[in-house]
């Protein structure tokens, strides 16, 4: 920490960011909640791996518990807290990270985009001199309008193919990282909108034609910051997708988690809703001008590198 500008320390930025996020959602009538960190059934997704914790698991996201709160009648909830994902370690990933999630009953993905458009300029005010020097266009862009680019448009322009004409998840994942993300403009925040059904995750799929998952991702200066969607509410479709992923995971030798009975019990009461997840560490990284999310952590890691090297094998 430099004595001259302690307020520019990533930890001080983190403090201001979290305070600003809370103020934003509090003003809009959201209820702040804390749901369990240790869970019996982490939300089973194709490419997300949970860390075991004494006969249970550490949550990979609070998504299912927060949807249970919506099912119980709460109209707008948010949570800022730790999440854990096995094997994710890099400049923009850390096995333990802080996530902001928010959900609105009666909303769709574009309502969440409105939330974000209101939130980003406030966050832009928190950028340090280092961040402004390092990412001038991106930081100035936080006050500008979010630019919406469809996934189809981006793939055709940057990767030369259309994921709606060729259902190829492997190629999609590869080209998203290698071609589309580097191609995205960096002078304004960008939303990639409307994913192919095979990349829907838990988003509602608009029947079309063509069928499009009502899901979007926000990028700031090429950094993926928010994932949002109109949430799937159909219990049968949840079961179908999770069963499909379970088969694929088992075939890859990856652990298959139990379906969460309490979540499935609550699902019939889940109202139409939309939700989003924002990586707080990445946001702090951007606003403090850090190169890596590691630089935004309060203390150096004390879990040895090998401890989370690989997703635990099937038992």
């Amino acid at each position: 920490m430099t004595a001259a500008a302690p307020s520019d320390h990533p930890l001080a930025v983190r403090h201001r960011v979290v305070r600003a996020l809370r103020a934003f959602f509090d003003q809009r009538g959201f209820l702040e909640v804390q749901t369990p960190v240790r869970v019996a059934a982490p939300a089973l997704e194709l490419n997300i791996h949970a860390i075991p914790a004494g006969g249970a698991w550490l949550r990979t996201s609070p998504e299912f518990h927060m949807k249970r709160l919506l099912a119980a009648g709460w109209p707008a909830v948010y949570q800022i807290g730790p999440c854990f994902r096995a094997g994710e370690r890099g400049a923009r990933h850390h096995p333990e990270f802080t996530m902001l999630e928010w959900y609105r009953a009666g909303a769709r993905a574009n309502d969440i985009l409105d939330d974000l458009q209101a939130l980003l300029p406030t966050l832009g005010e928190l950028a340090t001199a280092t961040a402004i020097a390092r990412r001038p266009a991106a930081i100035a862009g936080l006050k500008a309008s979010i630019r919406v680019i469809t996934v189809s448009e981006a793939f055709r322009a940057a990767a030369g193919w259309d994921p709606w004409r060729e259902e190829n998840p492997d190629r999609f994942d590869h080209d998203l990282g290698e071609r589309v993300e580097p191609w995205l403009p960096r002078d304004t925040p960008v939303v990639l909108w409307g994913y192919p059904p095979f990349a829907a995750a838990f988003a509602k799929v608009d029947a079309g034609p063509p069928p499009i998952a009502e899901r979007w991702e926000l990028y700031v200066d090429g950094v993926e910051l928010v994932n949002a969607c109109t949430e799937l509410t159909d219990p049968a479709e949840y079961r179908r997708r999770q069963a499909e992923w379970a088969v694929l995971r088992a075939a890859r030798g990856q652990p298959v988690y139990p379906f969460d009975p309490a979540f499935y019990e609550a699902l019939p009461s889940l109202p139409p809703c939309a939700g989003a997840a924002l990586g707080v560490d990445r946001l702090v990284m951007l606003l403090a001008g850090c190169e890596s999310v590691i630089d935004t952590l309060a203390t150096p890691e004390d879990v040895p590198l090998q401890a989370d090297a690989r997703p635990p094998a099937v038992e």
Partner: protein
Amino acid sequence: MYTASDLRKGLKIELDGVPYEVVEFNFVKPGKGQAMYKCRIKNLITQTTQDRTFREVDQIGKPDLEERVVQYSYEDGHHYVFTDPHTFEEFHLTEETLGDARYFLSDNVEVSLLIHNGRVIGVEFVKPFVEKQIVETEPGVRGDTATNVTKPAKIDTGYELRVPLFIDVGDVVRIDTRTGEYVERVGRR
């Protein structure tokens, strides 16, 4: 076998029978997609680097690699003989395997051998700097220590390198065995 999640900087892997070292490593995971491990890998035989992206499901070979610290013993025709001081096992290395390292050998100097499937593929000096006497060069230009101008010179083993203008025949210079380059003048013998 390794899986992609074992990859990190410094890990030695094997692809199509060739050993590589991961020299740069990036974990990326766009959207809800599969994790990708973007690596720059160095071929441990040719020392050339290339970029390679691995996916989460990829299986990656584990090379049979061993490091042995040995001492230089003697030259035997076309071979250079090194001895493990503990087991007295001898390693006969060719000029080709040693590369420029052969010019910097001295009695009992310690080198570390990198052995892949029983074949020596790398030789590094345990102490990377060696001192060698200049036996051939243009007469030294006194006082010129500031410029970066260099001239050719030869050491007793026949190795040629570039040295500053003030260096004379008989001067002892320090050489970095990793680059084969002149480092500094250490005196006269």
